[in-house]
């Protein structure tokens, strides 16, 4: 599948924003974060900006961005519509919870309840995003059990790294947040590693033979229907070279998991200033790694329609 910049940016930025929001909503009321005005302004500012910029970017690739409001209509059947509904709904508890934190400097009682609600909504939104891809029966590399855990864990992991960096900058590091970053990072790494093995070793049930239904041996494309790439080949025929994808997987694992994990551990032991630098670097590296991971998620996905255009398996 063609790796479009707008969708890569959307899923990574909004994943980070929702991950951070979920942590604020759960760890704030639990007393694990500083319930303080300026920290609140920065943390909610960053999280909601990442979410909103991501959502905005996702409308860039539409043919009719001005009609984007229509995209919530069919929530009964469409995961894209459900994602839109959840994204809008999340703003309500998230906004109120942020208000309590920033204006009243409280996250107790009912305000804490709003935080938990915001966290649940954030999780459901990311889950809905992943299910847009997970539900497509035409793409073996997406239609599997790894897609949703990867989106949830990578969102949580990058969100925790960003929150951790912010806490360090405010001089209030929290071991609990570092623990979430480590846990989500390790689990995310394991899921992606298992996913890459899975897509290397398995193929979709559909083949050139089932696509054409022709009997009597192997089916090969002899004569393509057109001489230049059409929409189908530009959008769905994207292929990344094998050696490129190997290298990019290594980069994604190093920048996305190995380096942030090591820096997070280091930040726990280093003195204030180097610790803050390590935490910021961990967040930047993690974000970059997930962008590479997301690029691969699209570039390594093979669409069933390519079976009509010369692929024998997908």
């Amino acid at each position, binding site marked *: *599948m063609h790796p479009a910049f707008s969708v890569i940016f959307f899923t990574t930025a909004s994943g980070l924003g929702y991950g951070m929001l979920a942590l604020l909503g759960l760890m704030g009321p639990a007393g694990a974060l500083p319930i303080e005005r300026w920290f609140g302004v920065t943390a909610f500012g960053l999280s909601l900006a990442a979410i909103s910029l991501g959502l905005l970017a996702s409308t860039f*690739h*539409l*043919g*009719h*961005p001005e*009609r*984007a409001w*229509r*995209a*919530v*209509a*069919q929530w*009964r*059947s*469409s*995961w*894209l*519509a459900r994602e*839109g509904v959840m994204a809008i709904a999340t703003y309500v508890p998230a906004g109120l919870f942020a208000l309590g934190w920033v204006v009243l400097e409280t996250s107790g009682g009912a305000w804490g309840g709003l935080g938990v609600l915001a966290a649940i909504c954030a999780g459901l939104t990311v889950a809905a995003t992943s299910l*847009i891809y997970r*539900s*497509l*029966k*035409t*793409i073996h590399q997406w239609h599997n059990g790894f897609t949703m855990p990867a989106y949830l864990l990578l969102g949580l992991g990058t969100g925790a790294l960003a929150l951790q960096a912010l806490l360090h900058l405010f001089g209030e590091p929290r071991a609990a947040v570092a623990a979430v970053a480590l846990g989500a990072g390790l689990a995310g790494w394991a899921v992606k590693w298992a996913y890459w093995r899975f897509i290397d070793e398995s193929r979709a*049930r*559909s083949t*050139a033979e*089932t*696509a*054409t*239904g*022709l*009997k*009597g*041996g*192997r*089916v*090969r*494309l*002899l*004569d*393509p*229907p*057109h*001489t*230049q*790439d*059409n*929409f*189908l080949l*530009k*959008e*769905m025929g994207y292929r990344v070279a094998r050696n490129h994808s190997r290298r990019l997987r290594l980069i994604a694992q190093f920048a996305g998991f190995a380096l942030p994990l090591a820096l997070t551990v280091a930040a726990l032991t280093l003195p204030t200033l180097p610790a803050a630098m390590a935490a910021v670097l961990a967040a930047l590296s993690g974000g970059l790694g997930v962008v590479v991971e997301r690029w691969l998620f699209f570039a390594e996905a093979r*669409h*069933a*329609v390519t079976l*009509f*255009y010369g692929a024998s398996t997908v």
Partner: protein
Amino acid sequence: MTSLPASTEKRLGLVIDLDICVGCQACVTNCKEWNTGGHSAPLTDLAPYGAKVDGVWFNRVHGFEVGEGKKSRTVHFPRSCLHCEAPDCVTVCPTGASYKRSADGIVLVDHDKCIGCKLCSWACPYGAREYDPDAGVMKKCTLCIDRIYNEHLESHDRVPACVATCPSRARHFGDFADPLSNVSKLVLDRGGYDLMPEIGYKPTNKYLPPRPRRTDAREVGAERAYLEPDIDLANPLLRWVNQLLSR
């Protein structure tokens, strides 16, 4: 509406006979010709005179080779929307622009509602949806709704453009819900089948397999005797003439 109808009154669709399609591209051309002025008009062409020609087409004919060596054969393979009974191209649409009609089962796009998110084209394994970047909306085969119900046309012309034009009669149009229709009978007689049944979209259109061969490709054609010169090469003069002519 993006939810699928539980059932449709009619199930209109095509039967494509792979035994007799000659790959002439007449259906492709007439489809483009009709539809660029029809319901989904225009079928935009991008850089039609440039090096990278591109554009929207609803029907494409591929050429496949199946099997190896002497037993291999060439099959011309038209590909267009199959107007599936349970297609995700409809249910994934967030706006309700992509829909399936409960009256006749035809799958259409409402171009006034489509936001051009392209998700429906990702959900179609058959490559039946082609995005029009100029109009910013998705376009696809309409089964020529503007012909099949068109009372300004003679009744024998009320068939999809591809069916009307096929010179070898490899394409048939009809109602699969009626067991006595031409298309239902053809499917029964000839073993019409679904493309990629494992995806589970239950295509309405059916393909008829090429008939088994009576002879291999190399056994038909001119007899060997006609291809070899039937002259007495013992005669030096004739041998010289033969060499001269064979150069």
